[in-house]
Structure formats: structure tokens, C-alpha cells
């Protein structure tokens, strides 16, 4: 017999095996999930969940697919949170501090409570990356926020109404497009292909009998 624990899904009590994740526990209890379930592997942020262990003051946040149930866990899922996503043209934004002031001015209303960081399901230093965004340090904001799955729990806890994941998204795109060093070998190769440099080589492969292709493949040199 498996060891069972009691969990409270939206307040209703269910007995479930202790080794299950919250997501599997919901399914075990009989929920056919539509919302609040995406990749089931911790990458997509669909299954943001808030819970409290009975008797604890702390309200905790997690991804349901990445967290094991505990006894007396009170669980509420947060399958959607109304983040503010500003619309912008990446070709027209400039990598300056002003862009944050224009698009996400509320970040300057941060009161430094750190509730975002405490709530982050990925254990990111959310308040710190917002501080970088305030200063227009997009590279650091991008690095600090890189593992964000945009689940929105941080924003649900923010008294200043900041949509942290969207701020970070903008910072990463600015960094990737404008600030990261340009890649010369990539640009050269695109140019070579447009110039038809490899056309003959490729066309030869298009015609080659299978036996010759096998020979070519099986004897090819492999870079160390």
C-alpha cells in the first residue's frame, strides 16, 4: 500500500499517494486538466500554483508539475494571470533606459518589498533583475532573468503592479538584438549561401546514388 497524504484542492480534501507531484495528484483525484497544464516538465509556466501548509503563515508558490505534494497542503492553481504586455516594434525600440520608462514605467514604483523574489517558482532574483531594468542595464537584466518561465506568480504578489516577466522579455530581446556582439561568421555564411557558393556541392549530393552517399557518410571525418 502506498503512503497517502491529505491535500486540499481548492479547499476540498483528497487523499493521494505521497510521491506524486501536485499535477499528478490533481489527476489522481479525478481532474482532467485543460488549463494549468502545458509541458509538464518545468519549462512553460502553465501550472503556476499557490499553496499553504496547514498551520504555516507562509504562502508558497511553485510549478505544479515540479513539486511533490505534502500532507495538509492547501492548493490553488493560477493558470492565468493578467500580465501587462506592451506592444512594440523591435526594429524601432532603442536600447536605452528611456524605453523602459515609456513601456513599463511602473517598474519605477517598485517599493523593494522583494515579494517577487520570494515567490519565484524558478528561484530567480526577480527584484534584482527589475533593478537592472530600471537602470537600463539590459544585459544584466537578461542574464538574471534568463531562466524565467513567465508563470506570472511574481506579478501576482507585486504591490506596485509590475509585470516582471514582460519587462524581462523586453530586456532579453533588446540584449539579443542590439547589445550582444554581432556574429561575423554567421553573416558571412548567409552571404556565401546567397552568392551560391555551395550550390554545386549541394546539387552533386542531390544526384548521388545511395551507395555513394553511404560511403561518403561512413568515411566522413568527424571534428574532435
Amino acid at each position, binding site marked *: 500500500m502506498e503512503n497517502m497524504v491529505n491535500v486540499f484542492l481548492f479547499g476540498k480534501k483528497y487523499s493521494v499517494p505521497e510521491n506524486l507531484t501536485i499535477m499528478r495528484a490533481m489527476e*489522481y483525484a479525478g481532474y482532467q486538466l485543460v488549463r494549468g497544464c502545458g509541458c509538464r516538465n518545468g519549462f512553460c509556466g502553465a501550472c503556476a500554483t499557490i499553496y499553504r501548509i496547514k498551520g504555516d503563515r507562509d504562502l508558497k508558490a511553485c510549478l505544479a508539475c515540479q513539486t511533490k505534494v505534502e500532507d495538509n497542503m492547501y492548493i490553488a492553481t493560477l493558470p492565468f494571470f493578467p500580465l501587462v504586455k506592451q506592444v512594440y516594434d523591435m526594429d524601432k525600440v532603442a536600447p536605452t533606459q528611456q524605453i523602459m520608462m515609456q513601456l513599463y514605467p511602473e517598474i519605477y514604483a517598485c517599493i523593494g518589498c522583494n515579494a517577487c523574489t520570494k515567490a519565484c517558482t524558478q528561484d530567480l532574483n526577480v527584484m534584482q533583475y527589475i533593478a537592472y531594468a530600471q537602470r537600463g542595464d539590459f544585459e544584466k537584466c537578461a542574464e538574471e532573468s*534568463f531562466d524565467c518561465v513567465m508563470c506570472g506568480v511574481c506579478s501576482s504578489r507585486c504591490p506596485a503592479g509590475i509585470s516582471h516577466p514582460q519587462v524581462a522579455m523586453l530586456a532579453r530581446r533588446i540584449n539579443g538584438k542590439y547589445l550582444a556582439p554581432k556574429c561575423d*561568421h*554567421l553573416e558571412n555564411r*548567409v552571404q556565401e549561401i546567397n552568392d551560391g557558393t555551395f550550390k554545386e*556541392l549541394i546539387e552533386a549530393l542531390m544526384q548521388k546514388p545511395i551507395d555513394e*552517399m553511404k560511403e561518403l557518410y561512413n568515411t*566522413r571525418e568527424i571534428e574532435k
Partner: protein
Amino acid sequence: MYSEKFTDSIKAVEAARAKNIAYEPARMTAQEKEDLLKAYHPDYKETEFAELKIGPNKGERVPHELCATLQANSRINPSDIDLSKIDYDVDVLVIGGGGAGASAAIEAHEAGANVMVVTKLRMGDANTMMAEGGIQAADKENDSPAIHFVDAFGGGHFAAKRELLRKLVCDAPEAISWLSDLGVEFDKDKDGNMITTHGGGTSRKRMHAAKDYSGAEIMRTLRDEVLNRQIPVVDFTAAIELILDENGNASGAVLVNMETEEIMVARAKTVIIATGGAGRMHYQGFPTSNHYGATADGLVLGYRAGAKLLYAETLQYHPTGAAYPEQIFGALVTEKVRSLGAKLVNAKGEVFMHPLETRDVSAASIIRECGDRGNGVDTGNGQGIWLDTPMIEAIGGEGTIEKRIPAMMRMFGKYGIDIRKEPILIYPTLHYQNGGLDITEDCMTTNVENLFVAGEAVGGIHGRNRLMGNSLLDIIVFGRSAGKNAAAKAKDVKVGALTLDHVNAFANERKAAGITTDEVSPKLLPDYRNK
């Protein structure tokens, strides 16, 4: 946290680590690989396949589960659908909100088309989001699209449609450039050179990555771009049948709201199927690395409308799915772990194969090691093989794991396993649908006019096995191409009278073949409820 029963085996792995790092295992010969695959790869297990009795691929063999879903009942009765009541009327209808669908939507929009995306979950709920290791492109000095072609063609057992593969490799650098320009953050050195590694079966280091969140970084950027362009996205809405017109051309889809079950009709001049893969079909009972909605929907939609499948019998089992702990059973452990130097080690601490053989060969080799050779580790939930992750830090220096594969460190860290210090247990997991709908170079199906396909729902780009990093590449290359071509084609299309006669015809074919089943398809979502 490993329980005591693993201690002896972990000690054997640790004791042999220094020797195993230095050891360079030989790669298998062509003959060895062929023999291994025939004996151990799930694709060769005859009893797991059934013959299609109806439809365009009648007489061909596909996995039992796929056969059942392809031949199942429609979710609708065509006579209940009022095709004169059009809820959405667009130029280009994109079905699927993953990497291919998003790329297609962006390019169709760029071309000036009125484009709309429908997706049964949220935009970005897709296998793209979960791709970890990277994306291939031959953009280094010592590499070329021709070398990339040979690697992929051989890795796919010389079965790829060459014109599709040519397009994949030749458009690859431009795809990376396009993504960079959208703001995707690839790993680069301070001079801007791409930091690239090997994948299984590559002969050059051409794997570009964004740590081990490569797919997530690409997907969230594409999604953001779709939103910036204000392309309509109808989420939590699945396409459940294609609509044809009186000339037999694809002309839209019947949609269903996943929550309210409301039925809607979308009319379109061209349709793009970008519905992704099928891991949640759990072929042969395998666990899967795939997202929740990977149920082969596009194959079902296309098949009923008369589109042909190619290589639908070939699946990819990723060699390294998590085998322990059970909470992450089947989750993807990126191939990049091996690219960075970790080797596969059996229960006795022996390296039994080269870590970067192609995925089908690696998976078969692991199955053999755990099966007939009896060198697997009992996980309590099946068998597993060690992937000796501490080797990465020994080779690349302290901090390499945190910098290059943070998602893996986090995934195991949640269960008390520090992959910098302890090896992890893996076993093959259902990962990728090699086959799919048969298309020409312009991404249109070979036999249904105005029906385009992109991404994992396509068959033939990779042949019978796919190399790591060629899927993130194909969703971008073929997604963009499908978007451009569908938009261009839409300019000249006059949609005729809409019809669902093909759904009736397929039902009649089913009846005539004596198939009786209660199953309906597309499946849309798996059912994991405790019954």
C-alpha cells in the same frame, strides 16, 4: 536524493570516473549499427504495429495507437455543422501555436496576409518550448551546408526527401540570423562567435544553444513577436476537422472551444497544419518527453482530408529520458549533457558505447545494455543507465554545469540530486515523430491543394531518424516557408462552397472496411485520471 540501494553502483561509477573520462570509445560500424537497431530499436518490434485498413496510406504499417486514432470516428457529425455560419474568415489559418505555427504566422503577416492562429492550449504550449539542447546551422569556417546535409542524410538512414533536406541545411544560417534579429540570445563568446558543440551524429560542432533553454528562448521570443504584431490568436481552441471546398481544396477548419465545447467554423484561403508531435500517444507504453498536447492531431486532420503520410512508422526514442526519480520519469535530459562530455556508464561503472552516436543507435544500445546484457540499474520503476554528469565539471571546469545546463541542474536539484557531484539515471523516452504529412518543397501537401504543413507534423525532412538540433531548425525553416508560401498562394485563391463530405466519405470507408470502434479523434489531450 539516492537511496542506499544505489550506493554500490554509484561507487563503481565514481571509482571508474577518471579512467572513463580518458577513455575514447570507438564508434560503431555501419553493420554494427544496423544489427543493433534491428534487434533492439522499438521501430523494429513487429508486434507493436498494425496495418492501416483505410485512407491514403492503406496497407502500410504504423504503431497500434496511431492506427487506431487515424481510423477513429470524427468528433463531429457533419450534418450538425452549419457551414454557412462563418465565425472566422481569414486568408491564412495556422493550426498550432508552437514554433512552426508562430514562425508561419509571423511570415504570413509580414507578407501582408490576414492570418490567424488557433491553438488548443496556450500560444507556446508546444514541444518547441521544451527543446533544450540546441539548433543546428553550418555557419562555422570548417563547416558547410553540404557537410550538414551528409550528416543528416546518413543519420536519417538515407531516407530523407533530398529536396526538403537541401532546404533545411541551406536555409539554416539565415534562420539563425532571423532569430538573432528578433532578439533570441544565442550563447556567444565576447567576439560574437557562436559557442557550438557536437550533437549525436554530427561531424562538425554546429549546435547553437541558449544554455539548455534553447527552445524556450526561441519560443518565448516568437510568441512575443506574434503578440507585438497583434496577430489574432484564438487559444484553448482546437481544430477537429479540416474543411474542404467543392474542388477538394483545403478551405478552413471546424474548431471547438476546449472549455465550453462551442463549435465554430473558420474559413481560410490556405491552411497551415503546425500541430506538432505525438509523444502523448505513448507508443509501445513508453513515457514521453513531450508536452501535454502532443497527440498527432494534424496527422488525423490531414489523413481524413486525403493527405498522405510519409514514414509514420518511425518514431524517435530519445536515449536519455529521466529514469529516476519517478516524479520526472520520461522527462528530457538534453543530449547537450553528452555534448559537454558526460558519458553513458552501466551499473558496473563501464562505458559501453560512444556517447554521441545518433539517437536511434544510442537508444537501442541502452535498451540492450539494460535488457539482454543485464547491466542496467534497477530504479524501482524499471531500469536505467548512468549518465555521469560530474565528468562535465571535471572536463570543463567548475561552474560549467550551472552556466551551460542550468535547467538540468534545477530539474534534478528539486529532488535532492546535485548533478555536479552525482550521476543521473536515464532510459529512452518517446521524443519525436520522425514521420508525418508528405509535402513538397513549398510546404504544401503532395495531394491536397492549399493545405500546408510545417514542423513536427511533416514527414520526410529527416528520413527515418532525426539528429539533435535539426528539429528546432526545421520548425523555423519550414514554418517561415509555409507562412510565406501560404500567404502568396492565398492571393489567387477563390474559396468555393465549403464541405465536410470527406468526413462522411471516410466514415463510409471505415464502415466498408468493417472497422468498429468507439474511439474518436483527434485525441486532443491524454487522460491521466485515476480510474
